[in-house]
């Protein structure tokens, strides 16, 4: 397979090292972090309006987090050796340390929070369900069937504490991914102290957007009424986060253009040619500016509910595409130019191979399949929450 090269590239640079799977990976972990932040808005910052999406956001985060290691495993030359990252982690390697951040976040934060929040339902379901599913619920109870008011209050407190740690953990999760790229001094497209922060904010944008769309879609599918107050609040937070994200990216761009260091000419040419469509058209115009304008319009103009829902839907979809394009531009863009700054190569994406487009599509569909299973196992809908056995109502999660 001859790869077209323009100008000069070091001979070993012509073939890209990291494929579309490595574009998917920060996209997926970004959705996790973003969905979790949205959930924590309600729990920690007491934004009551977004309560209807609390459990859905948590399950969404879990579904995506479970899929996140898959693109990495498929990309490795020796996936059977991947346990080495946990057995002999190299402490100076961001990638190795990330393995533990991921594990911590999955086990210590997300699973724990979901378990504590759902424990009453799990215990009840373990007693009422029949068939094979009953065994699943019984395992999930860990053998304890105590759902007294006192134990639930304790769960509440522990859960609050977990969420409190969870917020910086979510930032750490995706900030670390940003650092994996941002700490590579050899690559001027990646090397930047802003990278972790840009990644975190774009993660929040994509995660909030994903939960918003899922909420709209799932409510529609269940034939229920969308809580417009909830939706408006989510959209507002999406707008605020977007503005910060856009400002950060523009700041990076302006600084690069102004300082115009050795790499600038080469990178500038790359953006104007190979990355024109994916960066300028898709990421910036369609994926950032348009959603910001649309969301901004809903804040300053009076628009009726139906139209507003359509605007949110459109803005949400464009955002999801735009943030994917951002990951593409970072990962693929960072490998298209030569470190000699004298040439460019091309990314030849395969279709049906281990690292091809088909695999990427399958990996993007998988989290929704898992989410569907989770939603059946642990329904997050407000009306499915179990009614309290006494007068005391736990402060959140059920409404």
């Amino acid at each position, binding site marked *: 397979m001859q790869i077209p090269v323009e100008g000069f590239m070091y001979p070993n640079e012509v073939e890209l090292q*990291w494929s579309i799977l490595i574009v998917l990976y920060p996209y997926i972990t970004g959705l996790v972090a973003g969905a979790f932040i949205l959930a924590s808005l309600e729990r920690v910052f007491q934004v009551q309006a977004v309560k209807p999406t609390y459990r859905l956001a948590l399950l969404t985060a879990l579904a995506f987090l479970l899929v996140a290691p898959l693109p990495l495993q498929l*990309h490795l030359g020796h996936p059977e050796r991947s346990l080495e990252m946990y057995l002999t982690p190299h402490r100076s390697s*961001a990638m190795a340390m990330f393995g533990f951040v991921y594990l911590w976040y999955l086990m210590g934060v997300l699973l724990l929070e979901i378990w504590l929040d759902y424990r009453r339902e799990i215990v009840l379901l373990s007693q009422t369900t029949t068939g094979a599913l009953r065994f699943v619920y019984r395992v999930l109870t860990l053998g304890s069937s105590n759902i007294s008011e006192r134990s639930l209050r304790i769960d509440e407190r522990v859960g609050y504490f977990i969420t409190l740690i969870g917020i910086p953990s979510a930032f750490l999760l995706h900030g670390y991914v940003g650092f994996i790229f941002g700490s590579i001094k050899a690559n001027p497209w990646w090397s930047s102290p802003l990278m972790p922060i840009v990644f975190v904010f774009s993660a929040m944008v994509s995660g909030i957007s994903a939960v918003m769309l899922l909420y709209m879609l799932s409510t529609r599918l269940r034939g229920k009424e969308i809580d417009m107050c909830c939706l408006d609040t989510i959209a507002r937070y999406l707008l605020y986060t977007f503005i910060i994200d856009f400002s950060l990216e523009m700041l990076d761009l302006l600084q690069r253009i102004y300082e115009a260091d050795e790499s600038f000419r080469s990178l500038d040419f790359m953006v104007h040619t190979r990355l024109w469509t994916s960066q300028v058209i898709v990421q910036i115009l369609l994926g950032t500016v348009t959603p910001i304008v649309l969301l901004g319009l809903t804040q300053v103009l009076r628009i009726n509910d139906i139209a507003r829902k359509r605007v949110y839907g459109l803005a949400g979809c464009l955002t999801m595409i735009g943030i994917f394009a951002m990951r593409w531009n970072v990962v693929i863009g960072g490998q298209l130019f030569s470190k000699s700054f004298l040439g460019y190569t091309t990314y030849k994406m395969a279709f049906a191979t281990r690292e091809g487009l088909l695999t990427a599509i399958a990996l993007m569909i998988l989290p929704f399949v898992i989410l569907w299973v989770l939603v059946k196992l642990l329904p997050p809908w407000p009306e499915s929450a179990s009614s309290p056995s006494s007068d005391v109502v736990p402060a959140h999660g059920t409404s």
Partner: protein
Amino acid sequence: MDITRRRLLVLLPAAAVAWRYVLAGTPEASPNYRLTEHWWGMLIDIPKCIGCGSCVRACAEENDVPEGYYRTWIERYHVLDWPVERPEVESPNGGKYGFPPRAEDGKNFFVPKLCNHCAESPCTQVCPVGATFVSPDGVVLVDKNYCLGCRYCVQACPYGCRFINPKTKTAEKCTLCYHRITKGLTTACCEVCPTGARQLADLKNPKDPIHEFLRTHTVQVLKPHMATGAKVFYNGMDGSVR
């Protein structure tokens, strides 16, 4: 001694652990070679390089380098007067089969490149499992039985000297012919270089003639601003070399 059940419960695990050490063997070393007595590097004398490609071919043969990948390669520079940062560079098949004849004015020269065996190696820094490392004698090596093939090291190398071997699916690069230099020979590339443009250097050996050369000539490393502690020194290197 009576082998009671209790004693056996203690003895057996202890014996199992001890047996593992027996199986592992003692770390092998060439009888006269002491790791701490050497600190390897290389000198590339640019005015001497004739771009014959012997080094690239010899390296490929000595180390079974797959076609299309390069542990070492040669770049041909054609430098215009201005700007100096944008020379015309070519490296057809890494220079393995020589270069097409060109008759140009201006500044033209060849630059052999290889792994710089950095003392502060960025590729070693990012390896998640410790599959690539700086040996005690200053050679950056890859443990191909431990490497995951994650390619992080390839991204982290500023010089583009690493690649993934398509057969072993692990990271690979110049080993400074470690299997030769630990036996008192020189690297394959230095052996076949007809003009002495490439010469192995042992920076810890006071009798090494390259020491004297480094002290008395103007030498540079590639991309000094990266602060990698590169140990491949270039004599007579033009500012246009990328």
